[in-house]
């Protein structure tokens, strides 16, 4: 990245470059629909509002209710489980697949093309696909020969969270595989050649060359995964709507259901504020811990 203020600019002397007004349209759009709402949520959390009439000031009532409600803590715990579970499932999987796909070969190129497909489906499509596929009455799991595998995966509190984590992985592993593939392509070939001369085996090369060389890719991918997992909303909403019971009601889902189904926008705003705080805290912590300089997109989950 080169410095933009090079010496040639000095010739024009008084010219300070383009008018700052050029920034205005982007800034206005962004501030009005992203920054203002962030503070708006804090203000609305101090009101009682059913979504139709006007909000009424109620002070800390919503906050007291939210913070003393055991459901809030359950949903936070579930969000953290989904976050950690997603990382544990997706990281090794996409790392191995990415490293495998990074080598040349026609077969690998074709297979990699297919790997990418789930990422192109919308979360709603993925949710509905698996909801039907796993339906105990007429889905694929209703097939007789599956034996113990034929069960109500999404209706069982004991299995639903694990299944959700795997479906999220199905959707997002392609993106992370791609990142690892790009990373693995950039590992200097000479390292492997040298190791090969020293008689190192494939496994040893993986742990002593590939893995350390992919350090920054692991940081990038993990940051995206962890911060993004806080926003898995639509997939789980369509798949289980938070059920059975509260078994998959993660924080963003809890916010939506409280606000738009139970018509309690004030309380939902308090939950939204918790969510934003958690997201910002996580981003800042990850940035500090990993030295990852740019807090990257959360678009994954929108």
């Amino acid at each position, binding site marked *: 990245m080169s410095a933009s203020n090079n010496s*040639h600019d000095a010739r024009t002397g008084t010219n300070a470059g383009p008018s700052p007004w050029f920034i205005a349209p982007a800034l206005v759009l962004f*501030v009005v629909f992203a920054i203002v709402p962030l503070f708006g949520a804090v203000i609305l959390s101090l009101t009682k509002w059913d979504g139709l009439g006007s909000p009424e000031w109620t002070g800390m009532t919503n906050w007291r209710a939210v913070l003393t409600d055991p459901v809030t803590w359950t949903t936070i715990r579930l969000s953290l489980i989904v976050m950690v579970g997603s990382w544990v499932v997706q990281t090794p999987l996409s790392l191995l697949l990415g490293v495998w796909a990074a080598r040349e070969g026609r077969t690998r190129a074709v297979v990699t093309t297919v790997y990418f497909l789930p990422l192109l489906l919308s979360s709603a499509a993925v949710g509905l696909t698996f909801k039907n596929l796993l339906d105990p009455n007429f889905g694929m799991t209703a097939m007789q020969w599956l034996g113990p595998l034929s069960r109500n995966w999404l209706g069982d509190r004991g299995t639903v969270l694990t299944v959700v984590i795997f479906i999220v992985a199905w959707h997002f592993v392609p993106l992370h595989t*791609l990142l690892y593939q790009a990373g693995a392509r950039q590992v200097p070939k000479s390292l492997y050649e040298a190791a090969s001369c020293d008689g190192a085996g494939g496994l040893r090369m993986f742990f002593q060359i590939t893995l350390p060389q992919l350090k920054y890719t692991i940081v*990038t991918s993990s940051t995206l995964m962890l911060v993004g997992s806080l926003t898995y909303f639509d997939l789980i909403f369509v798949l289980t709507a938070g059920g059975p019971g509260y078994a998959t009601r993660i924080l963003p889902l809890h916010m939506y259901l409280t606000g738009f189904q139970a018509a309690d926008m004030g309380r939902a705003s308090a939950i939204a504020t918790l969510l934003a705080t958690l997201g910002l805290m996580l981003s800042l912590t990850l940035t500090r811990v990993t030295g990852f300089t740019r807090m990257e997109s959360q678009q994954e989950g929108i």
Partner: protein
Amino acid sequence: MSAAALAQISEISARDAPRRRRPRLNIPGGMGALLWLLVVVVPIYWVVITSLRTQQNFFTDGALVPPSDPTLENYALVFEKGFARFFLNSIIVTVGAVGLTIAVGLMAAYTIVRSKRPLAKRSLSVFLLGLAIPAQSAIIPIFYMITRMRLYDTLLAVILPSAAFAIPITVLIFTNYLRDIPGELFESMRLDGATEGQILHRLVLPLCVPAISTTAIYNGVNVWNNFLFPLVLTQSPRSRVLPLALWTFQGELTINVPAMMAAIVLSALPILTLYVLGRRQLIAGMTAGFGK
């Protein structure tokens, strides 16, 4: 992300690398890759073949056996349910939001890179803050504003917030791209008496075509697949977009699974076509801005 980095990433899809000795056969790796291939393909295969079954055959045929009597009647049914309208709405929303983002993002990025006023430089950090805001936490106030602006249940209600949340990544990609363009180009144009508007139109715009297509693809896929904004900000079939249409179909077609699957196939078709036509560009677009 610099242009060079983008080029490196798009090399992922470069087919023929320089000839070197064949990699040793990696049997566990190959087995694992094959297993994941099955995990990816089986659900997709199931969706496609189910969409071609009649409802009677759906209950009698084996789940993974090709349909005994393939039919397109499910697709016809989906179109009868107003699919073409939702299709058009999705296109309007996507083109609107992506176009708006690119227009305002390009102007902002050009100023951030070229202006010497500290204020302009500092505004970049405001945009970057947006990368850490979960859209969900802003949705209730957005709903409040949209209803007060009397935009509820219009396509504009979806376009404006979608564009706003696409701005941070867009500005980031554009500024990184514009920084790599030599300042002499802008200076010589200014010495020739061009106004800033002309520089923007005749120099910045053509130079940025690769960055524009990257952001267009990346944001386009996101907006096309977005569910939350349409769910909260629209209501009637008149302003329904595809992902939301899928979800409402589910209510209407409760146990007509083959029709549901046809709707899923149709909703994914445009992006899949895009993928087939421009795989390299699409992959570069998906990874752009994520660093290495």
